[in-house]
């Protein structure tokens, strides 16, 4: 797994690529937490999952803990561009009900630009 980050219109975009499984989940979680709780807190964190090929329950846990930290900090935390297999894991686990998921980065940006729901 590789994780890139970009800054876009004051928001942090986290871009995981590859597999978030048991062995890479803690590293991924640390990256998400850095994005949420960095010295200069962003208005929102967008996780662009276009290159995320695989996620297991260990990966879901990382998303859950980061989303919770963002909620406590008052930062929007949204996902976009999930591949079908990853989307299935989010849907089956009920996570797509507690974390907002958008079809692509533009839709996610539009949402976070409107401020908290």
């Amino acid at each position, binding site marked *: 797994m590789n994780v890139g980050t970009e800054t876009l219109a004051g928001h942090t975009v986290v871009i995981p690529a590859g597999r978030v499984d048991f062995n890479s989940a803690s590293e991924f979680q640390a990256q998400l937490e850095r994005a949420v709780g960095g010295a200069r807190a962003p208005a929102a964190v967008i996780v662009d999952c276009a290159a995320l090929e695989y996620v297991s329950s260990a990966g879901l846990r990382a998303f859950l803990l980061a989303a919770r930290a963002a909620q406590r900090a008052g930062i929007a935390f949204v996902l976009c561009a999930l591949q079908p*297999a990853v989307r299935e894991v989010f849907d089956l686990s*009920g996570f797509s009900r*507690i974390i907002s998921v958008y079809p692509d980065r533009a839709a996610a940006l539009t949402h976070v630009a409107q401020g908290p729901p």
Partner: protein
Amino acid sequence: MREQRTAVPGEAAQLPQLTAFLQQFCSSAALPAAQVLTFEVALEEIFMNVVMHGTAAGTQRRVEVSLALTDEGLTMTVEDDGPGFDPLSLPPPDVRASLAERPVGGLGVFLVRQMMDAVSYARVAGRNQLRMTKHLA
């Protein structure tokens, strides 16, 4: 019927090797990629469950994984020589809980149940045996 079997020590570092075994089997059987990913998740969840739970200090389990492709679909069986434990007895997580209330654990076995068409547990000759079948469209 096509069948293949492998065995590894019950430690997290073995997960990539097990995944590669599964991928190789599925690719030689020309299974669709989406189905393969479903089995990869199920394999990780069940294997890590064995690794994380119920192993006494200083002991290590041996985990055997077998794959069988039949007219019915693909069946994956995970066996280990640890103390008897039926993961299917775990209560399902509350998938309707809010973000703040959602428990962090307990999702793995739940996911496996949702993804597979049939899941069963048996204690056979002192070993835990978890069998998962998914029909292939």
